[in-house]
C-alpha cells in the first residue's frame, strides 16, 4: 500500500465532508500520477472546491484518507507546503504592491525555486513588473496568481477555476501556461466548469455531481462511453406535427434521443448515415425542419447524458 501511495502525487480514498446539513463531499476517491493533469468537472456546488481544499490541507475532512507523495497533512504539513503550488478561487492579492513585490514575497516563503524575474517572464508579465496589482486586468491578475503558485517550483499544482471570468484570449494564454507546466513529471489538479478547458488540458477528467464522482477517465474515453461521438440537434417549428421519438431512435446510427425545450437531441455515431436518414424521415412525415445543428460530442454532453442537467445550469 505504501508503495502504491509513493507512486502517486495525490491519493484520495473515501473522502467525506459535510457542512451543517449539506453534504459537500460524499465518499470520493482520486488518483493523480506524476506528469498527469486531472480535471474535476462539475456544476457549481458539486463539491469540487471542498475536495480541492481538503487536498490542499486547508480543510479537515470528516472521514477519508488524503496522501500527497505518500505523505499526509497530519505528519508532514511543512514539507507538503513546500512542494505544492496553489491557486485559490477569489484570492485578491494586495492591490498596493507591485507585481514584482508580490512575487518576491511569495518567493521568500519557499526554499527552492526560480528567480523572481524568471517567474514573471514565465507568466509574461515582464512589462507589468513594476505595476501595482490594482492596475492589472483580470487576466493579468490571474497570471500573477499563477506566478505565486509556480514560484516554489511545485511538484503538484492545484488550480481552482483558473480561467473563470476571463475573456477567451486571456483564457488561451493561461492554458498555454498550464500545458507548459506539465513537462517534467509535475502533476496538476484543476477544477473547472468549462468543458473545453478540461478537454484541452486534462489527461483525465473526474465528473463530480453532488459530492460523488459519477464518471472518470480520459476525456476521449468519457465521450466515447456515451456510445456516440456526434450530436445532432434539430427543431421543428412547434405544433405542426411532431416526429415520433420511437421512430427517431430507430434511425440508422442513433444511440439516444432527448427532447429539451422543443429541441430534439440525437446522440449518433455516424453523421453521414444518420443525417440523410433523419431528413428522409422528416420529409416523409411532413414535419417542417426549422433548425438543424451537429457538433462533436463534448464532456458537456457526457454530463447531460449522465445527469440530465447542464454543467452551467445557474
Amino acid at each position, binding site marked *: 500500500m505504501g508503495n502504491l501511495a509513493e507512486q502517486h502525487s495525490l491519493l484520495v480514498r473515501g473522502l467525506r465532508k459535510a457542512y451543517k446539513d449539506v453534504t459537500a463531499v460524499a465518499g470520493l476517491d482520486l488518483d493523480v500520477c506524476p506528469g498527469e493533469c486531472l480535471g474535476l468537472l462539475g456544476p457549481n456546488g458539486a463539491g469540487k472546491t471542498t475536495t480541492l481544499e481538503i487536498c490542499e490541507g486547508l480543510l479537515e475532512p470528516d472521514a477519508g484518507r488524503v496522501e500527497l507523495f505518500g505523505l499526509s497533512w497530519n505528519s508532514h504539513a511543512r514539507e507538503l507546503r513546500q512542494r505544492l503550488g496553489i491557486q485559490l478561487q477569489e484570492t485578491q492579492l494586495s492591490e498596493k504592491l507591485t507585481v514584482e513585490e508580490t512575487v518576491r514575497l511569495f518567493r521568500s516563503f519557499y526554499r527552492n525555486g526560480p528567480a523572481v524575474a524568471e517567474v514573471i517572464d514565465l507568466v509574461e508579465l515582464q512589462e507589468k513588473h513594476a505595476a501595482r496589482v490594482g492596475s492589472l486586468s483580470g487576466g493579468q491578475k490571474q497570471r500573477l496568481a499563477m506566478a505565486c503558485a509556480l514560484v516554489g*517550483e511545485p511538484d503538484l499544482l492545484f488550480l481552482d477555476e483558473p480561467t473563470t471570468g476571463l475573456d477567451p484570449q486571456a483564457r488561451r494564454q493561461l492554458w498555454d501556461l498550464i500545458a507548459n507546466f506539465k513537462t517534467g513529471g509535475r502533476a496538476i489538479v484543476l477544477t473547472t466548469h468549462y468543458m473545453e478547458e478540461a478537454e484541452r488540458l486534462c489527461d483525465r477528467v473526474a465528473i463530480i455531481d453532488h459530492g460523488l464522482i459519477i464518471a472518470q477517465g480520459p476525456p476521449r474515453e468519457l465521450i466515447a462511453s456515451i456510445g456516440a461521438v456526434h450530436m445532432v440537434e434539430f427543431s421543428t417549428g412547434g405544433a405542426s406535427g411532431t416526429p415520433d421519438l420511437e421512430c427517431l431512435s430507430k434511425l440508422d446510427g442513433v444511440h439516444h434521443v432527448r427532447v429539451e425545450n422543443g429541441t430534439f437531441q440525437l446522440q449518433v455515431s455516424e453523421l453521414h448515415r444518420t443525417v440523410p436518414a433523419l431528413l428522409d424521415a422528416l420529409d416523409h412525415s411532413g414535419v417542417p425542419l426549422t433548425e438543424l445543428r451537429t457538433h462533436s460530442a463534448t464532456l458537456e454532453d457526457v454530463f447531460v447524458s449522465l445527469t440530465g442537467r447542464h454543467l452551467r445550469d445557474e
Partner: protein
Amino acid sequence: MSDFAAIAPRTQAFAGRSLVELTLVRFREFWREPEAVFWVFIFPILLAAGLGLAFRNRPADVLNIGVSTPELARSLASEKSVAARTFTLAEGEQALRAGRIALLALPGANGGVVYRYDDTNPEGRLARFLVDQALQRAAGRRDPVPAGDELVREPGSRYIDFLIPGLLGMNLMGSGIWGIGFAIVDARRKKLLKRLIASPMSRAEYLLSFLFSRLVLLLFEVAALVGFGIWVFGVPLRAPLWELAFLCLLSSLSFSALGLLIASRVRTIEGASGLMNFVMLPMWVLSGVFFSAQRFPDVLQPFIKAMPLTAVVDALRGSMLQGARLPHLASELAVIAVWLVLSFIFALKLFRWR
C-alpha cells in the same frame, strides 16, 4: 515562453528573508495609503496645534462686576483684577442674571455694603473676596501680616502640557488597533490570509511582521507628536527619554494585541469598524485625553482606571509632566501589561486564518 524544465532550482539566500519581505509589505501598504499616513502623523499634530491655540494661556482674567453708586466704583478703581461698572439697580440685576457680571455691589444699611452673587459660581465667590478686600482696604483696613506675591507660570501645568500626553496615548491606541486590526480583517476578507497559509509562510512570522512594522512606525509617530509639543509649545519631558520610549512601546504592544483580538474573527470591514469604535469610543470619552477623568462620578472610577487608555495617558502624563519614574507608575504599568497579556492570549485562541 521559457521552458519550466530549463529552470534550475536555486537555494534561498537566508532564512529570515520571508520575515523581512513580510515586514516590507507592511510598510509599503502603509505608505501607499495616504489616508493612513494622514491619520497617524498629520492629524494628531493638527489637533495639538488647534487645541494648543484655543487654550493658550492668557493674562489672568479680569472679573466684571456691577456697582450701583459712583462711590463704590471709586473705591474699586485701584483693584486691577476687577472691572467695575455702574448700573441702576434694575440694570444691575439684569446683567447679573445674564452672567455679564459676577457680582453686584449695593450700598447697605449703616454705610455698609451688600454683595449680590451666586455662591455656586466660583467666579461669584472670587469676586466677593476681591471686592470685599478692595473695599475694606480703601476704607483704611491694614493687614496685620504683610504679604507679597511671587507669580509662577511654568510649562507643565498648562492645558497644552496636559493635552500632548493625552493625544500621544490616543494616537498609540488608534494606530495600534487600526493598524493591526484593519490590515488583518482586510486580508481575511480578500481571502489573502487563506492564500498565505496555503503557502509555506510561517504564521508566526506573519504576526511578527505586524509587530516589527508597528515598532518602527511607533518611533516616527512618537517623535513627530512629542517633538512638535516640545518645539512649538515647550512641553516638558521630565523623566528620562528611554522611560518615555519604554512606556510608548509597552502601550503600543498592548493596543496592538487588543487590535489583534478585535480582528481575530471578523470577516468584513464594516464589522471591524463597528467593533473597533465600540472598543475605542468609551476610552476617547472616559480616559482623560482632553480633560481629567476625575470629572466622572466616583462609581465609574474603578472602570475608568481599568481601561488601557486611562492607564497609558496617566503614565505618560506622570512621566512627561511630573517626572515620575517607572517604579512610581507601577499600577498603570500593571494595567497596561495585563491588557497586553490577556488580549494576546485570547487573540491566539480565537484567531481564524480563513
